[in-house]
């Protein structure tokens, strides 16, 4: 009985707090109402476009029926857990995204350094050009790689011209190398833009002091600049890695003989409409992404987050 009473109490409490939000009497309660008014539209969107579909996807992975959610079955999860193919796909996705992140962030640091520390001509144009690929969908990025490394690609044709070998043998756009360049192509701009934000906050007095005390440019970078931009590098790596995991269009076009999670989901649906398995992969993916984001953000200050 006591349990039921306390449930009744908590319902009453919840109702009264809803009541104070809707009909506030003090300034503090009015502020709460304002917060509610301002955040409710976002929550409505997040619930109906985000959480409900995700919950439905979880149900979908446990559905017995293929075309709609009916009956219960854990077959898809059993397949996912026992079939080694899926483990390999997960592993491939992670290392490939991690490697692309590493390369992109490293290049991003160098590019941001050059833009921030040197007075280069046409700096505005360079920044605009570097940010341009952020706007490109994955399929267009894939085309850019074909332009560079395809059979008629600029690099392919150049190498073919100098080495005398056939361009068809030299084309690498649809290999794993081409795919990697595709990843890096879409990630370098993001990494660079995040790191530019970090570089803007670096204390230049300390760098000048180090230089005038006789440190070489590299020592200055290693001991003074790097510790200051390290939080930005961590934030950049986390955000870029998240973007890398979500890449789909580029892989769909280039293939590269390499299957990542997003492509596999598409394949599961395209061949035999294995909706339960596709949904199960999706659930694992989202769970991983959420866990990674919340763990990752513990090491990052909120103002460093940018996309």
């Amino acid at each position, binding site marked *: 009985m006591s349990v039921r009473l306390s449930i009744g109490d908590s319902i009453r409490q919840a109702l009264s707090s809803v009541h104070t939000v809707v009909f506030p009497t003090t300034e503090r309660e009015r502020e709460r109402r304002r917060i509610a008014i301002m955040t409710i539209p976002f929550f409505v969107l997040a619930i109906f476009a985000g959480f409900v579909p995700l919950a439905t996807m979880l149900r979908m992975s446990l559905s017995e029926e293929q075309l709609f959610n009916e009956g219960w079955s854990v077959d898809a999860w059993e397949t996912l857990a026992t079939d080694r193919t899926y483990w390999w796909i997960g592993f491939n996705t992670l290392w490939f995204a991690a490697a692309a992140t590493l390369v992109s962030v490293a290049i991003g640091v160098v590019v941001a350094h050059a833009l921030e520390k040197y007075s280069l001509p046409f700096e505005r144009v360079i920044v605009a050009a570097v940010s341009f690929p952020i706007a490109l969908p994955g399929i267009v990025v894939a085309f850019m790689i074909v332009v560079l490394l395809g059979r008629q690609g600029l690099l392919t044709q150049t190498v073919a011209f100098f080495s005398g070998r056939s361009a068809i043998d030299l084309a690498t756009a649809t290999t794993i190398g081409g795919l990697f360049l595709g990843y890096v192509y879409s990630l370098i701009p993001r990494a660079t833009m995040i790191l530019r934000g970090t570089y803007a906050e670096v204390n230049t007095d300390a760098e000048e002091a180090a230089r005038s005390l006789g440190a070489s440019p590299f020592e200055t970078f290693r001991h003074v600049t790097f510790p200051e931009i390290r939080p930005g590098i961590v934030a950049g790596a986390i955000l870029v890695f998240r973007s890398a995991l979500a890449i*789909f*269009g580029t892989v769909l*076009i280039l293939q590269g003989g390499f299957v990542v999670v997003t492509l596999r989901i598409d394949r599961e649906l395209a061949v035999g409409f294995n909706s339960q398995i596709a949904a199960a992969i999706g659930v694992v*993916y989202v769970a991983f992404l959420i866990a990674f984001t919340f763990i990752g953000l513990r090491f990052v200050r909120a103002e460093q987050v940018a996309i």
Partner: protein
Amino acid sequence: MTTPRTSPSRDDSTTGDETQEVESPTDDVDTETALGREPAFQVADRQPLSTLLGRPVVVGVLLLALSVLVVPIVTTFVSSFARTATGALPTGFVTLEHWRYVLGFGEYGVRANAIPGLTFSVGIATAGMLLNVLIGVPVAYALSRYEFYARDWVNTLAILPLVPGVILGIAFLRTYPERGGSALGLVVGYCLLKSPYMVLTVQSSFQSMDLRHLEESARSLGASWPRALLTVIFPHAKQGILAGCIITWTLAAAEFNFTYMVHTGDPKPFSLFLFRNISNAPYLQSAAAISIYFLIVVVAILVLQTIGNSGFTTVRE
């Protein structure tokens, strides 16, 4: 406020820096040793390697990265005006044949060109953008202005897309089998997928203002809270709102991953037109199709730069 930014102060400091780089090390080392102190850093007699090579190497990497990013874009655009592309470089300039084809002029069929899809996508992207203003601006304000329970969680949710387009697509189809792939489904999906860009740009506008002070001044002069918001606070953040609009609109106009998963029927969105061209069309025709989108992005970046963004990014200077 809307004038293009130049940064004279930074240019000055950098040039000042460079003159120091040449002279100061030797001077300072002499004083340090004369005073009998250990120099803070080991100084070799000859110039350190990074003084000689540091800058050329860094600029070299910048140029390499820049050319990998830009050369294919320029090549694609230029090729779209070429007649043939059999050799190393496209030849036979200038023809508008491919542009005429993708834009649907001349004797070509109506369904094969970009215009119906582009019109449809522009409409959807605009609706998604407006919805994003209605949703993103208030939540950005609440997050910048107030402290409340679970604020950090709400913040993370609002600024980081937790679901990628492909997966949201499957989930949408099962949840809303009738509406998932319709125009409404696309608007709502784009709105959720692109909302972080709006929240981030608006938030960074709010962060540069003293929100509490502004709001209290407006209120003490007699404005009600809604009026203070609509006539004082939000107009102050118009640059961020505008930047968010341009970014969310441009990204939604060519969103592929989600669209590919959910969309069925006609008219096909612009991104599916691009997909059909990229995966299954002559090289030069694909180039022209993609160049349409390049022109849109160039305009977007030019507008973003005039309102104070450095490029196609939420990061502000």
